[in-house]
């Protein structure tokens, strides 16, 4: 068979070969750039340092948050206590914000009631203040065995690990000096 290929035919033919090679190239060079990983989710987010609210060790935590969400939390590498490490509970601290089980409004269960109902802050704070002062006044002991004691044994106060020194100082003032409590405890000692 004698092939009389014109210029036009030659161009068509070479174009076809190039196109075929291009298909092969696109479809079969799987080694190139296939290891794509997912986006870096804390890119452009500025971490906010905070203190773990759980135990008394007081580990430092970095909170990566957007406008309306907490995206990631991890140990603060610059914090002298934990140097970036965290326990399993401290690692869950993101859920304090993101969990659906989080309670966002004060709730009140009336005496004899079997259910909680949402109330506003004014009601809740008033109720707590009223109950404290009523209990304190009812059970206040001024003298015992002739000694001035000025105390109540009916109320106990429990502080949490998220409190700092200054807050603890104010709470001591309020509960020990102000109201006369003697049962003042801190989670750190339990």
């Amino acid at each position: 068979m004698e092939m009389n290929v014109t210029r036009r035919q030659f161009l068509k033919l070479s174009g076809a070969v190039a196109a075929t090679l291009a298909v092969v190239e696109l479809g079969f060079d799987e080694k190139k750039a296939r290891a794509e990983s997912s986006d870096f989710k804390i890119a452009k987010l500025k971490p906010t340092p905070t203190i773990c609210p759980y135990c008394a060790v007081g580990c430092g935590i970095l909170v990566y948050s957007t406008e309306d969400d907490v995206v990631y939390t991890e140990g603060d590498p610059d914090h002298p206590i934990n140097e970036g490490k965290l326990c399993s509970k401290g690692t869950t601290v993101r859920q304090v914000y993101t969990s659906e089980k989080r309670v966002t409004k004060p709730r009140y269960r009336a005496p004899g009631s079997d259910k909680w109902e949402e109330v506003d802050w004014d009601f809740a704070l008033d109720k707590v203040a009223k109950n404290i002062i009523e209990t304190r006044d009812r059970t206040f002991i001024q003298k015992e065995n002739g000694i001035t004691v000025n105390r109540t044994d009916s109320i106990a106060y429990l502080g949490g690990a998220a409190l700092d020194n200054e807050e603890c100082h104010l709470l001591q003032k309020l509960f020990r000096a102000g109201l006369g409590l003697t049962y003042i405890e801190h989670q750190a000692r339990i």
Partner: protein
Amino acid sequence: MADYIKFVDVTKCDGCRACMVACKNWNDLPEEPQDFSGSYQSHEKVTANTWNVLTFNEHQRSDGNFEWLFRHQSCLHCVEAACEKACPEDAISHTKFGSVVIDADKCVGCGYCVQGCTFDVVELATYKDKYGKEYRKAQKCDLCTSRLEEGLKPACVTACHTDCLIYDEKDTVLAEAEKRLAVVKERFPNANIYNPQGIKGTTSVYLLADKPSVYGLPENPKVPLSQIVWKDYAQPLGKALFGVTTMAVVGAVISTAINKEKGGHEGGQDHE
């Protein structure tokens, strides 16, 4: 860039499980509530949504003493990875960090990698698209590759407070591993460094307190020959053949067109 590897010294682990939580936290994995199974271990094994699990192995030693062995169980990122060999879609590959990652866009959820995995760490997760139709994707630990790219350590390593988990240069880590092995040999005579050479080593190396089988690990894992043949020979050959076929078909179409054209212009002179 120097090679970096992850090191798991199970003799330093205190079972706090921060690595598990850190993993869920970074990778935004959903919770998987479990029933109490009579052990402190939370999950039976790693799943598609729980990429690392701390196993609590209650083990009786040969001298009759009780030993509570912990192990941070997650993908070992084998250098010769059976999952990669098994994947027909080339969705599984090695990154420059040595981590074995699954490309979710390419994964079709066939589950060959689940069957193929030497350490039983790959599983299929079920998702729903916007029409409510279910589809599946293989999921497993990716060694936090997105973190590695930014110069950070994997989330589990960042959280670990006992230096049980380390991520560092390979030589440094292996030297440290030998040092620690010498220290723990006295307490754990069977202690060993688990970096199986049958699969050309792993990017996550263990210091185990007892024989691998005690932890449910294969003593000398290998990628089955059939999988290597399938991936390294059969598949490329099939693709090459597909390429040849494509070329043949395209070529045939073109030549037919040319012949037709010739026929139109030159009036049947193409027959000798």
